[in-house]
């Protein structure tokens, strides 16, 4: 993974000094809250319902065990013993004190971490496939380009006061685990007909109040053109994006209002001036960054370890966990392991300091000290020997981190909601907990098969409910919490926005309603292999509407 050099260290250190000084000026009253707010947002510090909230950047979701231990330490020393992994591969702390934040940032800087640009109208944390570097069929490791974009976008003087936030995501495989089509810019690494590597550039995707699937602005962009092309897009957005209405200020609105053709013309015109210019990354720098993402020293192994096979035969629970939580690795004899942060009835994405340390220790023992954070609020150990899966599983079980529900009904994605967030209209977490308890039986979850359930507590859609197979949007009606159900959403390479199925359900009724939806699917599916989302595509909403609303 990327390691800071003296330049990276310097800018992060200087930024902490600068922020410490800004905090000092704020506490002394030399700048008002209105003037300070954008400055603290530039360092990811929000003021939420109960306290400040700090969002720490985890670049493209990649963490070392050392960094994870520091995150655990920070949870203990500056917060209330836990953190929350988010749908953008970051971590949030819910209780830091403003006066402590400069010291907290200093501790992060020591392990090459920061909270820069995790908020505000700037380019945010660049996210990428959590299986980057280890997925079979990968064209090239997207983290290389995510790192290049991260550096280019850091304290970019022209793009720090955009009309609105800007999110970029990358994938290196056909299977899209980064939801690139739901981002302001989505980048897929592809080959052209001659086998040259370049990028498909998608623009104008997003969720929130107006969910839109991104459109392709460039089918193939040669590698060296990446940064000049991104500058062109950002420049057009900076000048033309709406600034009069925050709900119409994202680039997706601009692309819709100009139309893709006209928007493309504007970008390509700007690009002609920037192509080949100073912002183009030198090959030497690309090679330098690529070298950081070289594969670890894998042992030469065969696939299909005997230890794994016999453990699967012997232990049903282990076999169930392998089925859902373990994925195919490109290197023979290895596997990708997903750690569920969704125990039955738990708070999705939350991890205690002890759990973080346990994961760090297991990463050191089993996965070259490397951890990934997924945008489904789980963790991944990217490279585990198949023969060691059973002992890893035992290690995870001790800490309650072995729930066999990845990608299944218990793997619920939920934003913090009204329990924590200033923007929320309704709570998400207890709804997730109630649904999780309804589906606590692992056999039942496995029988249901792949199913994503996403819950957002407000229209900002931080729970990504629009792309959940079952999505829940919390709303307030007459002071009560209600939930609108959407069905058929998909976050992958076949991205779809879910459709509202009918009138909203109350807080008490919605877990049962979700169960009704699932039961309807089970009754109507063609066979056990037809997934929920495929069955919905085939059947349409009618059977679900009938089941949900027939007696109302």
């Amino acid at each position: 993974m990327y390691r800071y050099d003296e330049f990276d260290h310097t800018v992060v250190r200087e930024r902490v000094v600068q922020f410490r000084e800004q905090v000092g000026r704020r506490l002394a009253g030399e700048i008002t809250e209105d003037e300070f707010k954008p400055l603290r947002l530039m360092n990811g510090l929000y003021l939420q319902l109960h306290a400040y909230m700090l969002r720490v950047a985890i670049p493209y979701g990649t963490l070392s065990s050392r960094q994870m231990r520091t995150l655990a330490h920070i949870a203990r020393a500056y917060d209330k013993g836990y953190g929350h992994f988010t749908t953008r591969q970051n971590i949030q702390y819910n209780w830091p004190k403003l006066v402590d934040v400069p010291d907290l940032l200093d501790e992060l800087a020591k392990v090459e971490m920061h909270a820069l640009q995790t908020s505000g109208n700037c380019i945010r944390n660049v996210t990428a496939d959590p299986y980057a570097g280890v997925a079979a069929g990968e064209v090239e490791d997207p983290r290389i380009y995510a790192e290049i974009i991260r550096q280019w976008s850091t304290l970019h003087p022209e793009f720090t006061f955009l009309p609105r936030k800007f999110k970029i995501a990358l994938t290196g495989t056909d299977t899209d685990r980064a939801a690139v089509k739901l981002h302001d810019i989505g980048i897929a690494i592809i080959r052209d007909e001659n086998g040259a590597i370049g990028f498909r550039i998608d623009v104008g995707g997003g969720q929130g109040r107006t969910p839109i699937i991104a459109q392709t602005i460039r089918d193939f962009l040669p590698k060296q053109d990446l940064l000049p092309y991104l500058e062109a897009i950002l420049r057009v957005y900076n000048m033309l994006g709406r600034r009069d209405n925050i709900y119409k200020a994202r680039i997706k609105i601009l692309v819709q209002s100009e139309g893709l053709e006209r928007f493309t013309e504007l970008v390509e015109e700007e690009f002609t001036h920037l192509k080949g210019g100073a912002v183009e990354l030198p090959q030497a720098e690309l090679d330098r960054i690529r070298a950081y993402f070289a594969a670890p020293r894998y042992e030469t192994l065969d696939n299909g370890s005997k230890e794994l096979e016999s453990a699967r035969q012997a232990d049903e629970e282990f076999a169930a966990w392998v089925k859902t939580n373990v994925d195919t690795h490109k290197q023979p004899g290895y596997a990708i392991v997903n750690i569920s942060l969704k125990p039955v009835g738990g708070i999705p994405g939350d991890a205690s300091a002890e759990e973080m340390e346990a994961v760090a220790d297991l990463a050191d023992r089993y996965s070259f000290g490397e951890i990934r954070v997924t945008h489904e609020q789980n963790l991944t150990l990217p490279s585990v020997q198949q023969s060691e899966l059973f002992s890893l599983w035992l290690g995870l079980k001790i800490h309650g981190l072995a729930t066999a529900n990845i990608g299944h009904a218990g793997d619920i994605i939920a934003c913090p909601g009204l329990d924590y967030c200033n923007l929320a209209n309704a709570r998400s977490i207890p709804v997730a907990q109630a649904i999780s308890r309804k589906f606590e039986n692992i056999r039942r979850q496995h029988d249901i098969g792949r199913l994503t359930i996403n819950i957002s507590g407000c229209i900002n859609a931080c729970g990504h409910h629009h792309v959940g197979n079952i999505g829940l949007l919390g709303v307030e009606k007459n002071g009560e919490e209600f939930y609108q159900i959407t069905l058929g959403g998909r976050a992958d390479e076949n991205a779809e926005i879910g459709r509202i199925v009918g009138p909203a359900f109350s807080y008490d009724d919605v877990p049962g309603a979700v169960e009704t939806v699932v039961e309807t699917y089970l009754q109507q599916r063609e066979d056990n292999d037809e997934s929920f989302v495929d069955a919905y595509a085939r059947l349409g909403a009618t059977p679900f509407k009938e089941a949900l609303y027939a007696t109302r």
Partner: protein
Amino acid sequence: MPLVKNGEITPDPWTHIADGEDAPLDAPIIVSTDRWNAERASLVHRNAPIGIRLRNDQLPDELGEDLYRFGVVAIEFPAFKDGRAYTQARLLRERYRFTGEVRAFGDVLRDQLLFMQRCGIDAFEIRKLADAEAFRSTIGEISVFFQPAADDRRPVTALRNRAVASWAY
């Protein structure tokens, strides 16, 4: 309002003239594009220097070749959150190679000065005296830059690979 140029507070030789306001004949003035377009014939023949004030939704190419008549282009930050003038400044410097003064006015606050300077702004009408006095120290707060802009600071990519290249010999 203090003007900062070359790192310090200096007297301002220019005067902003509002549309409809009488323009002194012999003093350097800054006018809006509306006024320039309406009174171009007479303004072109002034003895004293002329400057132009862009709205922040205007692009420099609207000025055409006239751009090079102006001693100063003043660009606006109507609110500090409105970042369009950063693009205007870079275009003026990098696209149009404008070598006159590029001046920021409006909601110009301390914490944006370095970004402004990197985009090619070299004169600042700064709201608060304390911010103006802190100009030099503010500009020096960050010493590493990740991307080229309109200034002549070398981004890290240049510094890193120069280091590598030098021990290739």
